[in-house]
């Protein structure tokens, strides 16, 4: 064994942000894995199409996509079970194209676990070690260590058919980690487990990844799983990478309808975009840096919303940080993907969106808090004739004049009987209610037969909820809640 997992690897480059694990933003960081224009064809079928990707040491990287998108092919190319048609794959700077699977310092945890049925748990874990050393003491020591790590000490003498699915999964993990590989590949590792066990195991996986410091690449079609465990997620479609970003960016700023639709629940409203007048704020929305002058601009704000037909607030003074937040949301967040900063390296990204919004008033309260003044810029989306356009201040003005889609997450949409004082408010009818226990999702049909989902936390008991099927309701969301996507 070249190194034990516990030994910390020399980590040369300082991170751009101290304490935040973001090697992909560090131009000096050296990637562990480099896909360079990799193409894989089976006859006429192109499984991987000219793909370039860097994965860094200690990352927990998720390849996410529907079946047949090429994610498994990528993983098998890393393991050495598939040849590369074109391009190169580098592992720690070395081309591994011609290295057979048994000579790569890459181990894989198979979807079916592929435990050797004729060997005991102990022998399964020792299998890889026996291939590289004859030193029985070292093998014993390492196997015991792995058994401890995966809490399998009691089952060491059992055969794989004598243990439960969750235990088998841990044996497979222990076996693939035993040789302390540079890179561990996990092929749908939790697919065979039931929901509860799967959630527990996700945290266990993250824990083990952190303890061993191994780079993990996980293939999954379960977006929740990818979001939970991964430091970065690559969303794939038909052999191409659609978006590679941290889970919060993928969720909050999907770069296409495909990603928005694939990750989580989303409502799509189509319309024709027109540019909204800019405020005198000297910060063009495409500017990559925050202009300090923007801070001085709020005085000019009130004249902005004139063009906007969104329900207007009552001219209250803007909240202190609106401009900064807006700029952050609009400029830095979709483009650079730096926000919200991940608090701790490799920890579970919080599923709840970290974007602070003008807090939507609970629908039951009846007296919604007035939102702050609408900033200028962005897009107005004319989605239905005769109705007010929707305002999206984070829309890219370059899309003006095009048909665009506003993608909006259900949890960012409020539902109420009365017209809310949110930036956008649309009238509709409740078609369906999905009661999920902690939350309810309302399917609201708005003009043109478009369905919009709105979520409400069930803080009250069912009997007290006042919105039901076929009710005429209002849905509302802020001007920054949605994402404007091309087409």
């Amino acid at each position, binding site marked *: 064994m070249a190194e034990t997992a516990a030994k910390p690897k020399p980590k040369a480059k300082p991170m751009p942000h101290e304490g935040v694990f973001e090697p992909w933003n560090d131009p000096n960081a050296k990637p562990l894995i480099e896909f360079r224009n990799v193409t894989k064809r089976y006859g006429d079928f192109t499984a991987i199409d000219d793909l370039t990707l860097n994965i860094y040491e200690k990352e927990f990287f998720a390849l996410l996509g529907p079946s047949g998108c090429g994610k498994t092919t990528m993983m098998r190319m890393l393991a*050495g079970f598939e040849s590369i048609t074109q391009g190169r794959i580098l592992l720690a700077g070395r081309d591994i194209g011609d290295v057979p699977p048994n000579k790569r310092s890459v181990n894989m945890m198979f979807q079916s676990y*592929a435990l*050797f049925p004729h060997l005991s748990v102990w022998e399964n874990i020792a299998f890889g070690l026996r291939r590289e050393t004859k030193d029985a003491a070292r093998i014993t020591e390492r196997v015991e260590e792995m058994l401890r790590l995966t809490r399998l000490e009691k089952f060491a003498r059992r055969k794989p058919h004598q243990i439960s699915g969750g235990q088998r999964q841990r044996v497979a993990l222990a076996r693939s980690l035993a040789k302390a590989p540079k890179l561990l590949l996990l092929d749908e590792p939790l697919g065979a487990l039931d929901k509860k066990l799967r959630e527990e195991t996700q945290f266990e996986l993250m824990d083990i990844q952190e303890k061993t410091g191994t780079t993990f690449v996980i293939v999954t079609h379960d977006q929740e799983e990818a979001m939970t465990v991964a430091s970065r997620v690559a969303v794939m479609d038909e052999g191409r990478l659609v978006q590679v970003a941290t889970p919060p960016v993928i969720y909050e700023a999907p770069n296409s309808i495909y990603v928005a639709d694939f990750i989580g629940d989303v409502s799509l409203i189509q319309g024709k975009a027109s540019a909204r007048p800019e405020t005198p704020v000297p910060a063009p929305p495409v500017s990559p840096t925050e202009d300090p002058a923007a801070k001085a601009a709020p005085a000019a704000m009130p004249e902005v919303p004139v063009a906007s037909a969104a329900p207007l607030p009552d001219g209250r003074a803007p909240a202190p940080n609106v401009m900064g937040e807006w700029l952050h949301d609009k400029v830095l967040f979709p483009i650079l993907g730096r926000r919200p900063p991940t608090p701790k390296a490799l920890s579970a990204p919080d599923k709840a969106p970290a974007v602070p919004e003008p807090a939507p008033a609970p629908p039951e309260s009846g007296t919604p808090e007035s939102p702050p003044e609408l900033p200028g810029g962005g897009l107005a989306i004319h989605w239905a004739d005769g109705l007010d356009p929707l305002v999206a201040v984070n829309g890219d003005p370059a899309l003006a004049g095009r048909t665009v889609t506003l993608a909006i997450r259900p949890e960012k949409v409020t539902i109420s009987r009365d017209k809310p004082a949110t930036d956008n408010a649309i009238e509709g009818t409740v078609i369906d209610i999905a009661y999920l226990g902690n939350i309810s999702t309302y399917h609201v049909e708005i003009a043109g037969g478009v369905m919009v989902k709105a979520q409400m936390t069930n803080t009250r008991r069912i009997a007290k909820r006042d919105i039901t099927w076929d009710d005429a309701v209002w849905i509302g969301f802020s001007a920054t809640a949605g994402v404007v996507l091309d087409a």
Partner: protein
Amino acid sequence: MNRFSWFNVTSLTLGFAFLYLPMLILVIYSFNESKLVTVWAGFSTRWYGELFRNEEFLDAAWITLQVAFYSSTIATVLGTMAAYALVRGGRFRGRTLFSGMVYAPLVMPEVITGLSLLLLFIGLGMATGMLTVTLAHTTFSMAYVSVVVSSRLSTFDRSLEEAALDLGASPFEAFRLVTLPIIAPAVISGWLLAFTLSLDDLVIASFTTGPGATTLPIKVFSAVRLGVSPEINALSTILIAIVTVGVVTASLATKRQAIRQAREEKMGERGVA
């Protein structure tokens, strides 16, 4: 539905009678005192004694066992390799032709196989004898082995081999340490099948045998042409006994193992809870 309806009972009786009555008669007559096979003259084990004093029969039996052992062993190795190539090789060039050729001996009339092998041995200038019979038996029983083994291999989870490779095993180690132990039951039953086929083969053996390598079936067949002797009845009874013991033992062992496995699995589940 009554499982023991008259129809079921009748068909079962007829079927078993058809299969086992001739053998039963043979066994009964092997204990006949009389030298005439068809006339019952009282119980005796005399012909068994005669049989064990008959050098010719004993020699033939020994030769047959040797031929069966060597040919089935070679056939198992070659047949397993062929099956592995067919199942694992994927779509290589000429795969269909190769698999067709591997399975052809299954449907080829034995006379043709025997004759063509004889012509080959003559062409090569090989003296017919035990070696040629062994080679001939290997040729046709290999096909049976590869059928048995490839049906097992086709349900074999390929990722087990990949896991072995992934953990640093060479392809040969992966086969020896993972694949072979798992498909071992199929390989063993292929060997048994080849052994049995070689034991009772008459046609191919009679084509390819030579002086000094008379197998038991040939011996029996030529002896019967001179008239059925009670010795042959005795010999057949011994063969039936051996086969019965073998089959019963094998099936009992399999069943015991299945029961033990089920019990272990149950214990495993309890251990979880």
